């Protein structure tokens, strides 16, 4: 087998008999953290260059990898064939009881998904965008005179947290507590610390759920806490998962994407200047950058034997979806590594597709637009700090953990 080394993986699982040898490659979907190869999407593309649209890897107890735009669209678009019951590899790492709505299939999925759809409706996004914009301006004006910042630390987590607090109707005085917990989850010193912080988020969620059951408000937690599924209230366990999902789903994803946007623009002055001169092109730029810098790794499990791309995926086998392999599939997007704001069509799979397509996609787009709209006029020229270190970390989501930027104040 060719390909990269498997990191920290116990004895590789034997390949199932029905899989031809020419469909087996070494690949660890989660192991790309680096302070050298910052461009996560490009790394994923490079490591899988020339491989078939779906292949098997012995990593993580053995699973398929959906590696082309066509295959990814089928895997995400056919929940009757590819169930979301298992979303990570190996099997045992999946939550049990399942995280809802993430690990649910239609029709039950909608019973939980509806709360997210409502909280993130077009009307809700309009109001949340105003909050994001005010905070973005405040943050940028706050560090502009310094001529430097760590973009991740000083900007990118703040918008998603403020937005979650508004969606969930949380009081301003809870912000620093949440920020601390999030910091310990996103940049843990030890695994123990991270788990402690996750439990802290869980405990905070339970407190709010109970509060809102007793005294319902107009916010998303009240909506879920008092909602019914088949006439029954939702269990506290499921609700806790939903509330923490509401926070976490929009956190390292949005912060991560903002980081990749700024990393790219720091090195592409003509594109910065173009967007500053033509802010009406910012929405197109946001979608093109989203395509180019896909960050998530998803998973499904075959609900039945499925014929796809010339192989049989057997019932129970897991399929990992590397979203960069959609956005950087040259068959679908010629010269895929090039960022071209005029590229057509404008559609991409960075937010996934099908029934589990990111519920916060439009909110994410709005936050990214706000970033560019408010940053570029105030700090039009900036660079990567030559004395600083950019760090990229990844598991199921790739993000920049540190992005030092400098500019003339």
């Amino acid at each position: 087998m060719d390909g990269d080394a498997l990191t920290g993986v116990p004895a590789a699982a034997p390949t199932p008999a029905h899989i031809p040898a020419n469909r087996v490659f070494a690949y660890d979907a989660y192991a790309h953290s680096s302070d050298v190869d910052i461009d996560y999407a490009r790394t994923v593309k490079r490591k899988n260059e020339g491989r078939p649209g779906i292949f098997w890897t012995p990593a993580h107890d053995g699973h398929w990898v959906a590696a082309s735009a066509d295959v990814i669209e089928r895997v995400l678009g056919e929940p009757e064939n590819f169930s979301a019951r298992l979303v990570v590899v190996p099997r045992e790492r999946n939550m049990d009881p399942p995280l809802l709505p993430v690990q649910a299939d239609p029709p039950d999925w909608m019973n939980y998904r509806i709360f997210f759809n409502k909280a993130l409706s077009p009307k809700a996004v309009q109001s949340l965008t105003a909050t994001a914009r005010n905070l973005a301006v405040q943050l940028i004006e706050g560090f502009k005179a310094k001529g430097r910042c760590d973009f991740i630390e000083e900007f990118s987590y703040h918008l998603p947290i403020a937005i979650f607090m508004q969606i969930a109707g949380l009081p301003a005085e809870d912000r620093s507590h949440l920020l601390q917990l999030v910091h310990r989850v996103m940049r843990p010193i030890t695994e123990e610390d991270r788990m402690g912080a996750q439990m802290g988020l869980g405990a905070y969620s339970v407190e709010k759920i109970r509060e809102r059951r007793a005294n319902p408000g107009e916010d998303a937690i009240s909506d879920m806490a008092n909602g019914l599924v088949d006439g029954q209230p939702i269990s506290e366990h499921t609700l806790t998962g939903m509330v923490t999902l509401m926070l976490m789903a929009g956190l390292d994803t949005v912060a991560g994407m903002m980081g990749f946007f700024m990393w790219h623009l720091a090195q592409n002055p003509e594109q910065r200047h173009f967007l500053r001169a033509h802010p009406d092109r910012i929405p197109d730029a946001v979608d093109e950058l989203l395509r180019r810098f896909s960050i998530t790794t998803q998973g499904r499990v075959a609900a039945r034997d499925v014929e796809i791309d010339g192989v049989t995926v057997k019932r129970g086998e897991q399929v990992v979806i590397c979203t960069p392999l959609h956005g950087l599939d040259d068959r679908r997007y010629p010269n895929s590594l090039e960022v071209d704001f005029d590229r057509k069509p404008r559609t991409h799979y960075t937010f996934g597709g099908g029934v589990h397509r990111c519920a916060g996609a439009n909110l994410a787009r709005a936050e990214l637009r706000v970033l560019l709209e408010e940053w570029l006029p105030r700090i039009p020229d900036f660079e990567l700090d030559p004395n600083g270190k950019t760090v990229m970390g990844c598991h199921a989501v790739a993000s920049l953990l540190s992005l030092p930027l400098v500019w003339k104040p």
Partner: protein
Amino acid sequence: MPSVTFIQPDGSSQTVEAPIGESVMKAAMKADVPGIVAECGGNCSCATCHAHVDEQWFGRLESAGDFEAAMLDGVIEQAPTSRLTCQIKMREDLDGMVVRVPASQY
């Protein structure tokens, strides 16, 4: 082949083929009707296939289910005849239905 007419905010209109059993949203997407976005691909999850059904036709439609009704509260420019077009399945007696596209889905 039955058809649906989409009217834009500027008054211009487009009459498109709408096969029985397929959603009005799909008919719009196939004909590239501007202003029907349908981000989520027809899963009642984004409210961007929103349109105002003409009053003459609105009463003939099956009422919106609970999930669609919840989504309609979150559309931009909600009106009494608002519907998510991905939830309207074409029938023979809807041939010629008129639907107005809102100024924006966002």
